[in-house]
């Protein structure tokens, strides 16, 4: 198991390095001049040139690349062009929103999607099944920014239960901070919950038809006991894969949702940084996201191996 983890971990590190190289190279060809952007349309050329030099944009690309990579190893992500602050600090400041947001969304999507999937699979062919699956279809099909708007119109503008957006720092008022993440995480989680429900249902339906469920029933379990005791864990295998992948989608989805709910999260930071051509900030945040995604995939792999003994031992059949 430890070796399994170590191998996976080395793969992770290699992926990260390649990702860093590609991100750097891709952004180096980005047209547009951060200095010009900062100083605006009436700025004189020499002011722009002065700023370019100040930002270190004149150094050769390779030098900047290794400077960046080297810095990241010691936790130094560089200085943001537009904000003049350490990138690491800027990103860290946003994680307090994005991490809880994705985690809550993840919990919501699993907490809503899985029971619905199980229920539908257990009542396969019934009206409940059909109804739940219609809901799941709608859930997958609703653009999440639009759904976010509808949530705000209902819960903030009309009912005034929850804030329409914005964020109160955790340190100031944890309840308010949590409250400001409720609607965004619902908007973020809905499509994923719908997908999970469908995957869970399919997996469980497949499992219900499997030979070992029949064996379990032959032992004296009723169908539902057999499904609970033997089926759900087996059905979780495909679901785990999806859960791992969903993290990537949730992270990317924050860009949109953080815009709708004007949350100070990482997604919005990246979006703003892209439009402001704050290359160093974009690069480092993208790498952080890639790290988060492959880190999650790594954990998914471990979880998979933990659940499935076949992966753990890999003995020859």
């Amino acid at each position, binding site marked *: 198991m430890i070796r399994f983890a170590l191998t996976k971990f080395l*793969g992770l590190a290699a*992926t990260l390095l*390649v*990702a860093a190289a590609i991100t750097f190279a*891709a*952004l180096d*060809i*980005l*047209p547009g001049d951060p200095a010009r952007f900062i100083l605006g349309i009436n700025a004189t050329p020499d002011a722009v040139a002065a700023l370019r030099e100040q930002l270190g944009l004149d150094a050769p690309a390779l030098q900047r690349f290794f400077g960046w990579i080297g810095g990241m190893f010691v936790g130094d992500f560089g200085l943001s062009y537009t904000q003049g602050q350490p990138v690491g600090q800027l990103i860290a400041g946003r994680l307090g929103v994005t991490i809880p947001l994705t985690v809550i969304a993840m919990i919501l999507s699993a907490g809503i999607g899985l029971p619905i999937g199980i229920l539908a699979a257990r009542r396969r062919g019934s009206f409940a099944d059909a109804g739940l699956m219609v809901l799941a*279809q*709608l859930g*997958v*099909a*609703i*653009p*999440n*920014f*639009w759904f976010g*708007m509808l949530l705000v*119109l209902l819960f903030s503008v009309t009912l005034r239960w929850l804030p329409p957006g914005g964020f109160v720092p955790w340190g100031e008022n944890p309840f308010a901070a949590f409250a400001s993440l409720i609607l965004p995480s619902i908007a973020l989680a809905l*499509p*994923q919950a719908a*997908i999970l429900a*469908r*995957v869970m249902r*399919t997996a469980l339906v*497949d499992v219900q038809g499997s030979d070992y469920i029949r064996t379990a029933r032959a032992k004296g379990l009723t169908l539902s006991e057999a499904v609970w005791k033997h089926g759900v864990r087996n059905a979780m295998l*495909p679901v785990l*894969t*999806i859960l791992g*992948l*969903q993290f*990537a*989608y949730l*992270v*990317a*989805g924050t*860009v*949109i949702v953080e*815009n709708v709910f004007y949350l100070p999260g990482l*997604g919005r930071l*990246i*979006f703003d940084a*892209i*439009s402001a051509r704050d290359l160093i900030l*974009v690069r480092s945040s*993208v790498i952080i*996201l*890639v790290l988060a*995604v*492959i880190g999650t*995939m790594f954990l998914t792999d471990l979880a998979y191996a933990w659940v499935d003994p076949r992966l753990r031992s890999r003995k020859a059949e």
Partner: protein
Amino acid sequence: MTDLPAPEKRVWLRHPSLRIGAVASLVFLLVGFVSIAWVPYPIEVINVGAAMQDPSPAHWLGTDHLGRDMLSMIMKGTLTSFVVAAIAVAIGALIGVPLGLAAAAWGGPAEWFILRVNDFLFAFPALIIAILITTIFGPSAINAMIAVGIFNIPVFARVARGGALSLKTLDYVGAARLAGMGPIEIARRHILPNIASLIIVQATIQLALGILAEASLSYVGLGTQPPATSLGLMLKDAQTYALLKPSLALIPGITIILIVVALNLAGDGLRDQLDPKLRRLGGARGAA
């Protein structure tokens, strides 16, 4: 090996969700294609004086904030949404399927490399990279879809590889090799036709995802650009009118939902028609 009746007895299209999904998808597609030749009113012509009218015999769905006919907008928008999503699917399929087949056919280092590239692409948050690419090359629906298409490559590669691997061990592939066929010929004659249905299923699902991705990119201003329109762009434009004239947002929103549901139903139904063993191959990437 149990004595169950053969699955072939289920008639294609008996499946209600497949029937509904396929018919609805085709209807929307047809509406889109009709808009190439004809729309009730040209959408380039702006008549602010006639803005935000209610539905009437002249304008079945009313007019938008610039006085354009909503029905015409929806027709054109449907076409754009389909076309851009189809571009993303085409990029993904045309590159991904051969890659997947190559991985399955050659195995060894080639397969290792292709799988690593796949993993690698999966690691990037697609939407963010799409935003980045679109910003680099300029906001346009085509650029957006090229970006989304890149992330479709591993999806199709995975499906094609899985399908090909499950067929590769079948004896008729061996028989073809004995008959002196090369890998490309075998792929064309024996593998592709038999995994085509899998790929079509995945394509319908990715098409639905592409339509949603286009909407998301349009929402942040990086998708379809005026004067062209797409359902996503209509939705974005209507956001500020949500309270004044809710129908402006509801009509394109509901259209998107209907199209996506139709495509997903068609895809799911098709998948159900297939061998349940093959069903799992495409399932892994249902999320988006």
